[in-house]
């Protein structure tokens, strides 16, 4: 197996773990944690492709990863702000309990 393939497998595994977490946990914060893991797996893919790609000096993959890190930080801030807001409104972060469209 080439090094790139093993990185890709690890990234795929991490992505699936994150997806499973996001889909199966009840707590909204845990869902966000799962999404963060998925984003990170994608970052690993980007960096691995950059490193073993044909033109590493162009920095495309690395730039993509850096921007993705910045975007993920924004996503986490807004997501957790939403969770806190929902908790204040509904007094729970259990997603199964939030089954109504009405506030």
């Amino acid at each position, binding site marked *: 197996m*080439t*090094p*790139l*393939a093993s*990185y*890709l*497998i*690890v990234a*795929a*595994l*991490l*992505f*699936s*773990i994150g*997806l*499973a977490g996001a*889909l*199966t*946990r*009840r*707590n909204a*914060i*845990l869902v*966000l*944690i799962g999404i*963060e*893991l998925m984003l*990170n797996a994608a*970052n690993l893919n980007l*960096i691995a492709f*950059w*490193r*073993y*790609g044909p033109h590493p*000096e162009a*920095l495309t993959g*690395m*730039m993509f*990863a*850096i*921007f993705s*890190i*910045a*975007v*993920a*930080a*924004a*996503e*986490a*801030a807004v997501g*957790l*702000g*939403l*969770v*806190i*807001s929902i908790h*204040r409104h509904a007094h729970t*972060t*259990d997603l*199964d309990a939030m089954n109504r469209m009405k506030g």
Partner: protein
Amino acid sequence: MSIAFYLIAALTVAGGLAAVLLKNTVHCALALTVAFAGLALFFLQLDAQFAGFAQILVYIGAVAILVVFAILLTRGSETPKDGVFSRNWLAGLVIAAGVFAVLGWAVLQSVSVLPHETAAPTVTVLQIGNALMRRYVLPLEIVALLLTAALIGAVIVAMHEKEGAR
């Protein structure tokens, strides 16, 4: 592959698994930081120093702290009595397994065409800065705008009801 790769991979995957499986939410957040640290080590192994340090600074220094703050603010550290997994956890697990199967199959199918070991590129921070300021200046500005919007948005979303109650 070197031993270091397997060690880091084991650390990262174990951290990720613990983050989605543990009962206590704060433990999940701490396990998540282990996964983040493992990923940062991966970045260092892939000669992406800058991205690795940025990963530690942003994810461990900010996102993980944000997550634990959110957990404590929402009293999420108490384990709920009716289980931590949602009602349709089986469906979620099947979907995730399916996604992994597809991804893994795709990777294994393309092993033969994937490039082999290449020479390590030397990337200085100066090059990254130049790239950010020349070729990627538009995305940089957009990210700056997005971060500002996110900052204001997060503040407004989290503060809104308190202002209304006053």
